[in-house]
């Protein structure tokens, strides 16, 4: 049975750049995944609800605006509220090293900062899916 990995790629917050997110989206597609691209300026509520409807295995978010300490944990909180515990959540963007432990404690599985090689992201997803592949 073919079990295609579905990844919701989202840009929460107010920053207006999504080139990085698009590069990731393309790399994931080329690795055989289905990428649901949701565009710029999404609220955590929109992201979680879209991820549920799309039955995403992974939520990959990127933030450049500095609001990650608020927005990433908020997404985790909403997932918990909706009793979704089998989605792998990844963060990316400009994120200071000091913030990473806190974000991981909040439930973000891994943080990829600019320059993270895309093969590493793909490997991480394949090895850490919370659902049976």
């Amino acid at each position, binding site marked *: *049975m*073919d*079990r*295609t990995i*579905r990844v919701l790629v989202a840009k929460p917050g107010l920053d207006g750049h999504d080139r990085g997110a698009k590069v990731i*989206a*393309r790399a*994931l*597609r*080329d*690795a*055989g*995944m*289905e*990428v*649901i*691209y*949701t*565009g710029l300026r*999404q*609220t955590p*509520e*929109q*992201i979680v*609800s*879209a991820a*549920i*409807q*799309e*039955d995403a295995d992974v939520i990959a978010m990127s933030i450049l605006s500095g609001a990650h300490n608020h927005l990433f944990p908020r997404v985790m909180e909403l997932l918990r509220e*909706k009793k*979704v515990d089998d989605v792998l959540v990844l963060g990316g963007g400009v994120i200071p090293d000091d913030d990473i432990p806190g974000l991981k404690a909040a439930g973000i599985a891994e943080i990829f900062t600019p320059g993270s090689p895309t093969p590493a992201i793909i490997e991480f997803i394949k090895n850490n899916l919370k659902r049976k592949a």
Partner: protein
Amino acid sequence: MDDPAELARRARGGDARAIARLISMIEREDPARLAVLKLLHAWTGRAHVVGITGPPGAGKSTLADKIVSELRGRGRRVAVVAVDPSSPFTGGAILGDRIRMMRHATDEGVFIRSLATRGHLGGLSRATAETVRVLDAAGYDDVIIETVGVGQSEVDVVRLADTVVLVSVPGLGDDIQAIKAGVMEIGDVFCVNKADRDGSERVLREIKSMLENAVLNGAATRFTPLYDAMACMGAASGENAGAEDAVPDDEAHRSFFRQRAPSAADGGSGHHGGTLPGYGSLAIPPVLATVAETGEGVKALVDAVKAHEAALALTGMLATRRRDNLAWELGKALAGRILARLEDDGRRTAVAGLAGSVMDRQTDFYDALDALERMLGSRQP
């Protein structure tokens, strides 16, 4: 959630996670989905299924977004199934239709799902059909299917719809895009989007004149009752557009339309017993200009889509259309089963053997075909 009855119950209650899980089972052709779909079947057939098709970039997703808003304003629950192609090389896909519709993400009355075509050939229409049925059973009043209008499998998808909106745009060249002969077999409502751009008047004119020619030369006679009924609602284009005063909506006229509607008995070919007094039958389907980006013209488009649904019901053609579509779907599903049986390990060798003897001119093609049918047990020796 793995119990079929529980999953069916939750999907029917509109539980987004259950619906989403079920659609994933459909997508990966999980045999466990069948028990759930069987349970849901009794609750299907209520939604108005609307197909939106046209070339890439025509503004279909933007239009769908605005149509959802309009329908929500009318108090309807709406689902969107957006189909995009998978990469033939990697099997992956970037599904971007949702970008245009994110404003509806947190609206409980809206469910949006992106589907990739994946490997399934005829399977695309199967997966889409099953998805539409789940959303129908879940209580969405309107289910919109967005699909790119290129290639046979995408065109097939519109056979799942009650009403098909064919979207075109100015500036795609002189050959009036994919809109060619037989177009009335595909489109019920014609939309020229990006009407803010130069050349949209010309595209509107070209589509209208093409439709008028089809009506005049009889290529569309089986649709005449439908177009006339739409004209009565003020929803048709062409010479008699807006002639709603000419035909009052009373029982006499309703029965007139019923009489003229192709009946199941004559195989849908129709009989056309004259025209209504004071009313020609030169009505053509609605051809409308929209600017999806601003929402201009979308209300009229939704009116036309709903008029088409009403006209289908009024003429009795809704039942005919759904029955024809289901017959087609059954045929496709059966063909799929037969192909799967031929793929069986034991049979694959036999098929290869027969193909070899056709190639060596020991058997002719048709004897080989008969032999295959006998092998599958579907033909008497």
